[in-house]
């Protein structure tokens, strides 16, 4: 227990300290490397400095990876689970097929997918077998990006998003509690939105030069491979959940005239909310440390597909820039903590009630 205490909390502390030093460059591998305290400079450089642009693209990628992995794996996993819940023949075989990627290492699946996504082969020539033209999409090397935004506008975009969410929540609440919906959600949302829209110019730029980031098409292949690997997992979670719902409840719903779709939408899926939450937590944790897969698929070749976890490794162990690597690690850690801490606190409270 003490070991875990030291290895987890002691080491996190140590990394925080390292991230505030200038440890790096030549001589950094010496047993007693020279380290000087430089405060938050590493972070400032990552977020605003010239050299940090790669990291900022990585962060943007990480957000897209996470969102799409979550949507894809949870969506597809739930869909397959519903299909298998119809008890088709050969259910066992199918379940085995859908779940086997989960047993594989990211390196194995990354190696195979890299070959599948090769430019003039693999997936791209599949359409030719049904008489269509081959696709010419360069899955892993594309430089094209969609949804491009200027990193300078980041603060404005974030505020817009906040306003949008506030208004959305407000509209949802409207039916339940009109007063609070308007006072707490709608009005602040509209005020923030209007303010940014009208006076956006006085909000400081997040960066001193223009820098464009977007969703890189080259990351699509990686996302596809991750979804392939993890939707079986969510399927298993949901299937276990569906099996846990009693047949009586299902029969009762059917007697009340619920359709299949209605049963899942209004009864089964809402009942499995805890499972959805665990799946989201596990998958977001996986997407944050997604290093092996990208390493195996594009490696350091295509910077457009980078991810903070990969950059952390490259900066730390290839460029020996330990301090900056530590800073990246801490950023990752903070993002992870945003998901995990509330979850663990919830779990703890639940344990207390038991």
């Amino acid at each position, binding site marked *: 227990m003490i*070991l*875990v205490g030291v*290895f*987890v909390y002691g*080491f*996190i502390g*140590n*990394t925080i300290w*390292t991230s505030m030093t200038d440890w790096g460059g030549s001589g950094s591998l010496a*047993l007693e490397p020279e380290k000087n305290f430089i405060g938050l400079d590493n972070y400032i450089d990552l977020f605003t400095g010239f050299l940090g642009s790669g990291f900022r693209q990585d962060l943007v990628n990480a957000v897209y990876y996470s969102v799409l992995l979550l949507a894809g794996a949870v969506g597809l996993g739930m869909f397959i689970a519903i299909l*298998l819940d*119809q*008890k*088709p023949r050969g259910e066992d075989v*199918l379940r*085995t097929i*859908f779940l*086997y*990627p989960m*047993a*594989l*290492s*990211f*390196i*194995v699946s990354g*190696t*195979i997918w*890299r*070959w599948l996504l*090769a430019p003039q*082969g*693999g997936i791209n*020539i599949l359409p030719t077998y049904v008489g269509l033209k081959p696709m010419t999409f360069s899955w892993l090397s594309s430089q094209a990006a969609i949804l491009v935004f200027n990193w300078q506008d980041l603060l404005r975009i974030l505020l817009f998003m906040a306003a949008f969410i506030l208004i959305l929540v407000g509209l949802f609440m409207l039916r339940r509690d009109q007063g609070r919906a308007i006072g707490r959600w709608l009005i602040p949302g509209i005020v923030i939105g209007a303010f940014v829209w009208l006076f956006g110019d006085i909000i400081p730029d997040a960066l001193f030069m223009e820098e464009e980031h977007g969703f890189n098409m080259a990351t699509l292949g990686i996302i596809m491979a991750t979804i*392939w690997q993890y939707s079986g997992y969510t399927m*298993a979670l949901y299937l*276990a959940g569906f099996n846990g719902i009693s047949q009586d409840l299902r029969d009762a719903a059917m007697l009340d005239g619920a359709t299949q779709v209605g049963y899942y939408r209004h009864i089964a899926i809402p009942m499995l909310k*805890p*499972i959805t939450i665990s799946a989201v*937590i*596990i998958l977001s*944790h996986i997407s944050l*440390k997604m*290093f092996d897969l990208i*390493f195996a698929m594009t490696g350091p070749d295509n910077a457009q597909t980078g991810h903070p*976890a990969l950059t*952390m*490794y490259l900066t*730390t162990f290839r460029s020996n820039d330990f301090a900056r690597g530590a800073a*990246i*690690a*801490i950023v990752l*850690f903070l993002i*992870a903590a945003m998901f*995990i*801490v509330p979850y*663990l*606190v919830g779990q*703890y409270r*639940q*344990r207390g009630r038991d």
Partner: protein
Amino acid sequence: MVRSKITPGSVFLYSILTVLALFFLMPAYMAAVTALKMPADISLPSAWELPPVFNWASFSEAIELLRPNFINSIILTICATFGSTMLGSLNGYVFSKWKFKGSDIVFTLFLFGMFIPYQVILIPLFQTLRAMNLYGGLPGLILAHIVYGLPITSLIFRNFYAQIPTALIESARLDGAGFFSIYLRIVFPLSIPGFVVTSLWQFTQIWNEFLWGICLTRHADNPITVGLAQLAGGQAVSWNLPMAGSIMAAVPVLCIYIFLGRYFIRGLLAGSVKE
């Protein structure tokens, strides 16, 4: 519920399931087909076709190349799995049957270790192992896997031991049995299924691990994932080798999955912190 009639609904269900199954099997097919081709027969336009001549030599060549990594991985996985399950079981026993003041808080803090991105502890881990003279070899890697495997194994065992009635422990305590004798005589024999689940989970995780393997070991002690990544890394590789290597790296865990699937899935579900 057995359906014998062919309805539009069931046709729809089966066709979607078939398409999905094909999508999930696609990479496995591709790996097998490519691994069995002669290097000269591998070309992008014919990637999906069956090999004209079966060439098993890729496998022997891949085995030759990856043998040291394979052996490393076996040693690593067995030692680390054993260590982390044993300690995890003791921990789980403490957290479920010898609760102390604040043990729930400690346990929650403990679980946190399971979810941190390992990048955040990588640098100090690297330094510590170096200071302990364990960097570069298997013992260091084993130690890392044991320590960071503890949160998940403790969790699985704790949930498992929650099913053992506390009355049983208490009566043993009244009979004068102590902490360890209760563990050895009562808890341990009852927890064999728990050991199976936890070991399978740990085995899979450790076998598949890559980040520590590449950061904490020197070339001679690289586990199989690192060996495979190096095999597949170059630009001008003939793809039969990496594919054969991938199959090799996947076989142990796939065997576990196929033959002990029930326990594997249970581990999977336990790993999702369901309580």
